[in-house]
């Protein structure tokens, strides 16, 4: 028995619970999703193989066009808020506001939507956009601009879900970019201001180059989570009205748990699983396996 095999048995008790959970709730589901996508399984959970019927159906599905376009729009515009506005918040609260407590106050407020349970966050939006005068936005537009009340969610479903998700994502960008800005050596700022650089110049030539990797990382990371997450959309618009805010991941959910077409839902999910694996591998390649690993502290006994 060689040494590394022996050490495997030393490590096993520590690692076994981790491996078991990962096996049953990640690997098995990935394989199952793949196999299920070739069946017409419904709520009775019987395996009845139908070949590639689900994928053919996917191409002929008349909703898939609008769902696809919605997904692209949703991911693109939310990403701008998540990364762009998150960056803006980080620069303002870390670079422009020199007083650390004031910066922290704004950061704390922006963290609130992120910490709030999804159900409550959705409730706040439903109230804010309430179609009657009890909603904040209608009250404001009545009082300030003398406009009649309107049903915001019905009239602008995509805008609503983009902003609602953007506010959540922006805070993550803010936290990550803030700590990156803080790690820029102070001398760079000093040299730049001695040279007479404006604030804009400092952002353009000092902060952005230093934040290249975090910005890129955040963009890819958020793309992945936006493509697959639908919790807030489900709670605020539920994809409606008439699929106008239905995105790919939510479509899979609706097919499976509303129409009980598990097989077809799995086929729709499979597209996401493949995209997720590709993006994860791109991340690994781009940011480098070694760079992502912290240095290990291992000494041979």
């Amino acid at each position, binding site marked *: 028995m060689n040494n590394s095999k022996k050490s*495997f048995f030393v*490590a096993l*008790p*520590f*690692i076994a*619970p*981790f491996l078991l959970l*990962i096996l049953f*709730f990640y690997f*098995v*589901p990935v394989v*199952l*999703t793949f196999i*299920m996508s070739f069946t017409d399984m419904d709520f009775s*959970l019987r395996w009845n193989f139908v070949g590639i019927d689900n994928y053919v159906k996917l191409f002929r599905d008349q909703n898939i066009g609008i769902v696809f376009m919605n997904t692209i729009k949703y991911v693109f515009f939310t990403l701008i808020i998540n990364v762009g506005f998150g960056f803006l*918040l980080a620069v*303002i609260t870390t670079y422009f506001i020199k007083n650390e407590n004031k910066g922290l106050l704004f*950061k704390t407020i922006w*963290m*609130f939507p992120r*910490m709030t*349970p*999804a*159900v*409550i966050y959705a*409730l*706040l939006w*439903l109230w*804010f956009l309430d179609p009657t005068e*009890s909603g*904040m936005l209608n009250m404001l537009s009545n009082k300030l601009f003398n406009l009649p009340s309107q049903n915001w969610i019905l009239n602008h479903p995509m805008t609503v879900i983009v902003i609602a998700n953007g506010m959540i994502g922006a805070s993550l960008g803010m*936290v*990550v970019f*803030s*700590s*990156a800005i803080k790690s820029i050596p102070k001398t760079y700022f000093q040299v730049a201001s001695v040279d007479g650089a404006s604030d804009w110049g400092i952002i353009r030539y000092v902060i952005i180059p230093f*934040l290249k*990797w975090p910005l890129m990382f955040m963009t890819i*990371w958020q793309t*992945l989570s936006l493509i697959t997450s*639908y919790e807030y959309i489900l*709670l605020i618009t539920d994809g409606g009205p008439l699929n106008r805010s239905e995105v790919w991941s939510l479509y*899979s959910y609706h097919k499976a748990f509303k129409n009980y077409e*598990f097989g077809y*839902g*799995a086929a729709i*999910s499979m597209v996401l699983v493949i995209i*997720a*694996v590709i*993006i*994860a*591998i791109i991340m690994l390649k781009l940011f480098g*396996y070694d*760079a*992502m690993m*912290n240095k290990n*502290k*291992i*000494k*041979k006994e």
Partner: protein
Amino acid sequence: MKHRLMPFISKALIYIFLILTTLPIIIAYLWLFTSSFSKQVTFGIIPKNFTITNWRFLWDEIKLGLTVFESIWPITFNSILLAGSVTILEVIISLMAGFALSRLDFWGKDFIMKCTIILHAFPGVALLIALYYVLNFASLIDSIIGVVLVKVALELPMATWMIKGFFDEIPWDIEWAAYIDGCTKFQAWYKIILPHIKPGIAAVAIFAFLAGWSEFIYSYIFLFSSKNYTLSVFIKNLIGDFRFLDYGLLSAAGLFYLIPVIVFFLISQKSLMKVQFGGIKG
């Protein structure tokens, strides 16, 4: 003159921008608070007629026509059970796995590390349908334990990664001294190393608790009998029925659900701001 005025104006503009964008958040949470304690709110956030009837769900049944909602206390207990179990399991399992990944060298470790990084980015919701099958197969559907296991598994790569980072910080000498004194691997882990990473453990525990407490989608799909409901599912159902009728009741129930989050958030706010994303290097 112009030289001194310009920075002032640009600074003022920045503050105005920041305050305008932040205001909706402040208003929304202010509304949640005031509307839960008043019969009516004017201008969205100014309370009128103080009342506590919105909080009647704490001591009374909520009725709507013929439907009677469950009492909130067993449901709160379910939420505590869920969040508590997620916390305990996630902390223990990630402490063990993080230790092995940081301190031991073993066959297959490289593969496990790579998987952890990929899974860390891999979204669990894409697997919802298959998870339903797995839970059903294991007879864990419609049980809180099932939701706990799913939640722990999906949070585990992230937690393990964080914990591994904390272990990496501890000098080898400390552990080495333990072995000299005759400790086994397990004793060294439990008695010598763990006390050194208490702050890290606290951070992971708070993250896990909040994740479990806020959990919605898995409870919503995997729990269907009302005795197993958690607060998120309960409030989701309340919103469905009372949305256009009684915002007072909804905001009170929402605030009730939000209290632990606010408490934990304020305790751990500093460490949350420093949240490290295993992998970001400039």
